[in-house]
């Protein structure tokens, strides 16, 4: 062991030179080169990729949001600076505010539903017998693993107007008139279905995370709470809650970030329709920018979205960095 320690104290060079005290000039030069430049050489591909594909576009996004960039400018390559016109246009548009409010309400509803259901599932998993628990876990993993687009096709089929199993079931249960009922006829109903399918996919991750926290609590603590005469609710508050509260904070942030920017499911179900009634902010950005070729306006929308998320993210990263596991040593 002592020999290992000695080497550890030595700067990690290539092969340890035979006599470390008198290195040959060549060995010293090579060691110096490798220690000074090697890390940067190894990091280069990652830095170049992140720089070119994430940082440079972010910088470009800021510039684009201050330019008028429609099809004409795109073709002629003209640089037309319009200051904050894009922002005033977007912020002055009642449609934008309607969509923003809709997106925030939608996000809040999906996050709340996800967290509540997941908490219930996690607490339930602890109480189940092993076979039922495994059954539930398999179902959760499958729901989690199904790709988002496949999920949208399934839900559209389940909610199909004529032959969907939901309408058939409702009819069978005695609710007359559901055969032929369209679940995608108006915005709120469409968004409810979209919210359901996002929740269905989001619950497993949150539930498993919370469950991992719950099974980390030593059994003795529950026994002690029982001896002290705590009821189920008191036990939850005094024993389970401290164990899952930090995890709950993390998954809440992650859910907010994920559900705020969700595009795939909203787009794949009805492209933001009917009549734009299920359009959320990312879909709005797509429609303005890519479909409508108003790249400057879409850039401003993206910047506003980014600002909202940065505010949310800053707090999250602050929490992450304060935690023990993530140390930028």
């Amino acid at each position, binding site marked *: 062991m002592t020999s290992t320690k000695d080497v550890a104290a030595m700067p990690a060079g290539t092969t340890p030179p035979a006599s470390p005290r008198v290195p040959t000039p060549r060995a010293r030069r090579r060691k110096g080169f490798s220690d000074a430049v090697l890390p940067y050489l*190894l990091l280069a591909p990652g830095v170049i990729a992140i720089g070119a594909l994430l940082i440079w576009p972010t910088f470009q996004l800021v510039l684009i949001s201050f330019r008028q960039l429609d099809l004409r400018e795109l073709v002629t390559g003209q640089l037309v600076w319009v200051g904050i016109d894009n922002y005033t246009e977007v912020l002055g548009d009642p449609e934008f505010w309607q969509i923003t409010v809709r997106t925030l309400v939608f996000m809040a509803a999906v996050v709340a539903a996800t967290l509540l259901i997941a908490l219930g599932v996690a607490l339930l998993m602890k109480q189940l017998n092993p076979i039922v628990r495994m059954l539930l876990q398999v179902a959760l993993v499958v729901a989690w693993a199904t790709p988002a687009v496949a999920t949208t096709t*399934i839900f559209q089929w389940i909610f199909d107007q004529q032959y969907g199993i939901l309408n058939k079931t409702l009819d069978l249960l005695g609710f007359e008139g559901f055969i032929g009922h369209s679940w995608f006829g108006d915005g709120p109903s469409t968004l409810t279905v979209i919210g359901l399918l996002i929740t269905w996919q989001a619950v497993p991750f949150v539930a498993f995370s919370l469950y991992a926290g719950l099974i980390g609590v030593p059994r003795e603590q529950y026994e002690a709470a029982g001896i002290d005469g705590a009821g189920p609710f008191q036990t939850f508050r005094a024993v389970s809650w401290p164990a899952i509260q930090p995890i709950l904070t993390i998954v809440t942030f992650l859910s907010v970030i994920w559900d705020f920017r969700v595009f795939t499911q909203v787009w794949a179900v009805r492209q933001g329709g009917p009549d734009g009634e299920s359009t959320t902010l990312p879909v709005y950005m797509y429609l303005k920018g890519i479909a409508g070729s108003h790249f400057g306006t879409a850039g401003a929308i*993206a910047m506003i979205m980014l600002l909202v998320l940065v505010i949310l*993210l800053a707090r999250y990263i602050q929490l992450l960095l304060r935690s023990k596991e993530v140390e930028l040593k």
Partner: protein
Amino acid sequence: MRKSLPQRIALNTVGVVGAILFGFPTYWLITTAFKTPGEVLSPRYDLIPLSITFENFTSALSKPGFTTFLTNSLIVTLGAVVTALIAGVLAAVPLARMKFRGRKGFLFLVLVAQLAPIEALLIPLYLLMRDAGLLNQLPSLLLVYMALTLPFTCWMLYGFVNGIPIELEEAAMIDGCGRWGAFRRVTLPLLGPALVATSVFSFITAWNEFLFALVLMRDQDMQTIPVWLATFRTAFAVDWGGIMAASVIYAVPALIFFLIVQRKLVSGLTAGAVKG
């Protein structure tokens, strides 16, 4: 705390109902894919399929371009996984093993990039690819997916390399290995499971990606399978069996890979859980 028998029965019943609710959509996807078109579009109440047919799978596979879309998806996904993995390993080793200026800065950058919404970069990335003449070219999507998975790959691999005791490499160096030899013979084999887990996660991310595939691949021949599934539902008219069969083919690789790394995924994503 022992629960009484009726309580346990009630809880387990709720558990079974929960399992059915969460399992049903996927069950419904698979059973519909194996039903005949006549059965799919019948007013009969048919929770359990009476017969099994592969008709839908042959009809999905024979849809014009299906194999092209599948190949496109595979090329961009595997290309992104491999390039991100190489760049990730190269970055993770110095991050975990060497001291140099800018190390903390890069780690912080990676952490932020991992959480940053790449959707916001849709417009600049679209214009960038357009200027580079890469629209409707698979490399554009491959690059975007690499950028999408790289921060996560770096962060995960950095954690894994950190977890391998440096003494092992040092022992190999005492035994006469060079730094590269020690890495290749000691660290890399130990990193194996981490490489699998990380690349599977990248695979799933890229395989499922939709927005950039929709925007960068406007040309119908260059589409990936999720975009085709979502936008060309009309190609199937009301052929729900066909859509479900195509969805099954699309979902299977993701499902299999997911099951391999499922446990690691939970611990990996919550590794940053805040304590207190």
